[in-house]
């Protein structure tokens, strides 16, 4: 267990090496409120909270702090009868590691025993304030699971990487067809670790359907834009459109204006126990940017012949 040996407790708490006990306490309280696993469900928060708590455990006690200052991160492996001040004086006369205030040079070697920090501290909450409680189950955690519209439609295997105690954890998850935005999915026992052998909490993945260039998802319904030429909209037509499930034909009735929603029943996101959502093609009438001479002429004829007034009609 060398998780703590490379950590600078002062930096973890964001205080100077000569900070007062009050400053240390204040820094710790602020960070604890920010990273406590019940306040912050991000899986990375637990590790941060553990580090901050360990730093506070060491620095809040003037005795341990003095030993940490003198011997550095490995201070726990220094026999208790080595006096920090004598050690410092000895090192200063030897001229080693000048001015750093930390051990590590100096011709003093510590026995490299296997000391389990968890054991020393009784786990995440076993220390300071945790006395009197038995094992405590770990906190539930939450992480987002970004999913494309296509994945939400057809499902598939996804790999999810989360930052965790030991670097990164990754899971392969089978995303079922028809997940919707905001859906919570539970991975039992994959949340925060329990103390003293208590079970871990659960990890909840929250499905987040990512923005798509042509689909907008609302619940299980999918909206997509259907562009039409004025004559297609006026005369009616049948157009192929892309849907997440493949190409489909939309029948555009004659006399369709912009903004009309044409429904393709059941072409939205599927539902394992119920009706699939619908796909709505929202019509939008487009005109040529630069009409050809012939087009222009025909539009002019139409304008002359027609008595249609779009602003009078409701």
């Amino acid at each position: 267990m060398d998780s703590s040996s490379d950590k600078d407790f002062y930096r973890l708490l964001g205080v100077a090496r000569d900070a007062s006990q009050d400053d240390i306490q204040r820094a710790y309280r602020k960070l604890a409120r920010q990273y406590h696993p019940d306040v912050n469900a991000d899986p990375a928060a637990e590790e941060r909270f553990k580090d901050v708590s360990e730093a506070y455990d060491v620095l809040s006690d003037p005795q341990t702090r003095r030993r940490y200052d003198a011997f550095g991160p490995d201070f726990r492996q220094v026999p208790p009868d080595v006096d920090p001040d004598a050690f410092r004086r000895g090192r200063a006369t030897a001229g080693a590691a000048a001015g750093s205030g930390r051990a590590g040079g100096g011709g003093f070697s510590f026995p490299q025993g296997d000391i389990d920090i968890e054991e020393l501290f009784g786990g995440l909450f076993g220390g300071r304030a945790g006395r009197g409680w038995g094992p405590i189950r770990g906190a539930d955690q939450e992480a987002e699971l970004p999913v494309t519209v296509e994945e939400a439609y057809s499902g598939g295997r996804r790999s999810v990487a989360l930052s965790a105690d030991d670097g990164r954890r990754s899971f392969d998850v089978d995303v079922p067809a028809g997940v919707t935005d905001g859906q919570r999915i539970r991975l039992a026992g994959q949340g925060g670790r329990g103390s003293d052998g208590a079970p871990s909490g659960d990890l909840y993945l929250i499905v987040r359907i990512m923005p798509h260039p042509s689909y907008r998802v609302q619940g299980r319904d999918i909206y997509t834009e259907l562009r039409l030429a004025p004559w297609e909209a006026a005369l009616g037509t049948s157009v192929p459109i892309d849907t997440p499930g493949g190409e489909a034909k939309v029948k555009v009735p004659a006399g369709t204006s912009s903004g009309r929603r044409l429904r393709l029943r059941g072409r939205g996101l599927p539902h394992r126990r119920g009706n699939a959502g619908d796909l709505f093609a929202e019509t939008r009438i487009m005109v040529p940017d630069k009409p050809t001479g012939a087009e222009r002429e025909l539009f002019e004829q139409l304008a002359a012949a027609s008595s249609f007034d779009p602003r009078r009609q409701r």
Partner: protein
Amino acid sequence: MTYALIPYPRSGDRRLSLDVFARATGTHPDLVRRLVALGVVDAERDRAGQLWFSTDEVAALARVQRLRAGFALNYAAVGLVTDLLDRIAALQAAQRGSPPGG
């Protein structure tokens, strides 16, 4: 490892007796009774006066323990904090457009 993603069903169909609940949470039954009296842990009382706990309360009590340990809170404060955390969770879930656990 591969996990099938299964929507999480709402629990609460299984109820635990005081003794089972105390063992599951690693607490003394007397302390559990006190926590119920303080409204920190929810329980139902049957006609015989026995306390029954939903399985959700196991996680709820663990949270109470962690919060107490992390912030040295008293039970009144823990009750307030858990209520506020639940309210925030409900608001965030509403913002996501899905009921919690749904």
